[in-house]
């Protein structure tokens, strides 16, 4: 084991930056100065790799904010624009492996809870199709997240504004969180991510859409880089039918609070007591 650690250490630490990366601390244990040093190193690394200046934010959660999401199943037409808007915004690997944080499943009308007959790879000429409904699923940002509980190294945690994040530099790639998630909310970089420099989004957050590395896990963060600056998540913005709603659960005047109080909302797999902050509802 020591030999193996030595082997991988050797391959990394040829450079000073490599050594610093190897010894990098857990994000939550870094001082402000240490964070700045890490950001500088990462920005230099990304510049070298993509030839672009990437701005990495470490903006913290605002007090009095708990993000909540609403999804109107009556409106979703299954077009998957959200899937690709998310990929573009969040710098996922495009091919080999192709990573997506949102999965839209097609369900035969008449069955909602049993997902065993869900169709993941539907591909008709046009959507929506008669007789079917569509259910987009992504990380449900649980208040009681099983993925966080099982992580052996605390590489994933729930932020004060309720977003479950991953420190990609701390994840050891054991994939226990993937086994624990009841929503398939996490995907894995099975290889070095394939992200063309031309498609790189340079406005990133350390805990969100910054470019990842091979063999670490990643997930939806409600577009942490956007929502902490007062913008909507990319999926909300792109949706052509107004299916997707977003807001502060602690603000009694927010749209999400209005929906919860006035629509008949439900949450996916509520029987797991994961307490998701992702609310599905039917406007009609």
């Amino acid at each position, binding site marked *: 084991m020591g030999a193996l650690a030595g082997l991988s250490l050797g391959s990394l630490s040829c450079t000073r930056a490599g050594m610093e990366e190897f010894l990098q601390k857990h994000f939550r244990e870094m001082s402000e100065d240490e964070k700045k040093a890490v950001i500088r190193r990462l920005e230099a690394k990304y510049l070298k790799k993509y030839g672009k200046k990437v701005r990495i934010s470490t903006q913290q959660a605002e007090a009095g904010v708990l993000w909540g999401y609403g999804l109107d199943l009556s409106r979703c037409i299954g077009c998957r624009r959200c899937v690709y808007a998310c990929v573009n915004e969040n710098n996922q690997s495009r091919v080999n492996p192709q990573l997506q944080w949102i999965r839209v499943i097609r369900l035969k009308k008449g069955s909602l809870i049993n*997902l*065993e007959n869900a169709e*993941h790879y539907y591909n008709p000429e046009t959507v929506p199709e008669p007789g079917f409904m569509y259910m987009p699923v992504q990380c449900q940002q649980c208040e009681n997240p099983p993925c966080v509980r099982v992580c052996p190294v605390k590489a994933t945690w729930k932020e004060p504004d309720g977003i479950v994040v991953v420190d990609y530099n701390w994840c050891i790639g054991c994939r226990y969180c993937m*086994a624990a998630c009841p929503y398939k909310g996490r995907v894995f970089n099975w290889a070095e991510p394939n992200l063309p420099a031309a498609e790189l989004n340079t406005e990133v957050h350390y805990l969100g859409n910054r470019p990842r590395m091979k063999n670490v896990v990643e997930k939806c963060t409600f577009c942490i880089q956007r929502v902490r600056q007062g913008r909507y998540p990319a999926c909300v913005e792109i949706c052509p039918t107004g299916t997707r709603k977003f807001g502060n659960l602690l603000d009694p005047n927010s749209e999400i609070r209005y929906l919860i109080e006035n629509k008949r909302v439900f949450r996916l797999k509520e029987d797991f007591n994961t307490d998701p902050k992702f609310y599905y509802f039917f406007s009609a």
Partner: protein
Amino acid sequence: MEAWRFFKKTVSMVFIGTKGYYLWCAFLLTVIGIAITFYIQQLDAGLIVTQMRDQVSWGLYIGNFTYLVGVAAAAVLLVIPAYIYHFDPIKEIVVLGELLAASAIIMALMFVLADLGRPDRFWHIIPFIGSLSFPNSLLAWDVIVLNGYLVLNTIVPIYILVKIYFGAEPSKKFVIPLVLLSIPWAVGIHTVTAFLYNGLAARPFWNASILAPRFLASAFCSGPAMAIIIFQILRKTAGMKIRNEALFKISELIAYSMFINLFLLGAELFKEYYTGTIHLAPMEYLYQGLHGHHSLVPWIWSALFMNVTAFVIFLIPKTRENLLTLNIGSFFIIVGVWIEKGLGLIVPGFIPDPLGEIYEYMPNINEIAISLGIWAFGLLIFTLFMRIAIPIQRGDFIHSRYAKPTARPQYERIEP
């Protein structure tokens, strides 16, 4: 000075052996060498070289890990009767059983490492240096109990062997408490490993409280079955003194364990099939196939056939006390439990996945080569352990003052 002689001789003995010994070691080293080339590829390209994907995110590595934790835990099956009930024929082989356990734990830990995406960040999991999430993560528990068990199962046999070498009585005050501790600890490692899966509500196939008892029952089949085969090989090749009586006793214990294992399996099958809820799907996938996907079906039925056949062989005194049928039964159990607890346990946990997708997983050449390499490494370690332990136990490798044949203490001295 004698300690230096012991060390020097130990090192040199490892390099001296029969032609068969050299061939065996060369074979194992070749397998390890091939595995290393595959592992370097995996390190370089990432886990994409395996067949694992987001849908089935654990596979052959974690299956082998689970199986080997069971083999290691089963060392207690050899320890309990020897120390508690003073069943003499088994006493002779306790030291070897514990070394087998230690080898199995080393393999188990290597399988976790092989599965780990970022072995370079291994230090994150080391207590105090990294940020081990104890007590929240069951994986953290496993790290602690497995390493503790490894230490326990190396200290006791090494201590006993060194004492024998020096012609001294192992101190009961030292050995007995450690041995008594290793018994609940063995139950502990396998329980914790079962809880690792058991604690995931998202995976109904694993989220059954019968999992930990079943793990223990099947471990008490596979570990001793492996011991039966290994001890016969050592008896032939290394002149180790093991009486048939000891092997027959072990096989009788296997029969009871296998009965419990099959009974618990039946209980689980009844519950799933009679209630027929959506949680039946993984079981259906495993035993019948689901929506046209059935790659595990032939495997699990072979496992069931082997386990039941072995149970019958070990139940009937006539067949269990016949070396040919005994070995067939042992082989069936080793393979049958491996299927049941390896691919047959890990893969259906992921099928269908939480959103109902079915991705059929079968390990590819990369995973198979790396797994064989880890097995070869474990067998090599065990072989080297035996290369030293057996001559000590036989009284051939001993303190210079006892070197004259007449002064040799008898083999039976190993008991504390």
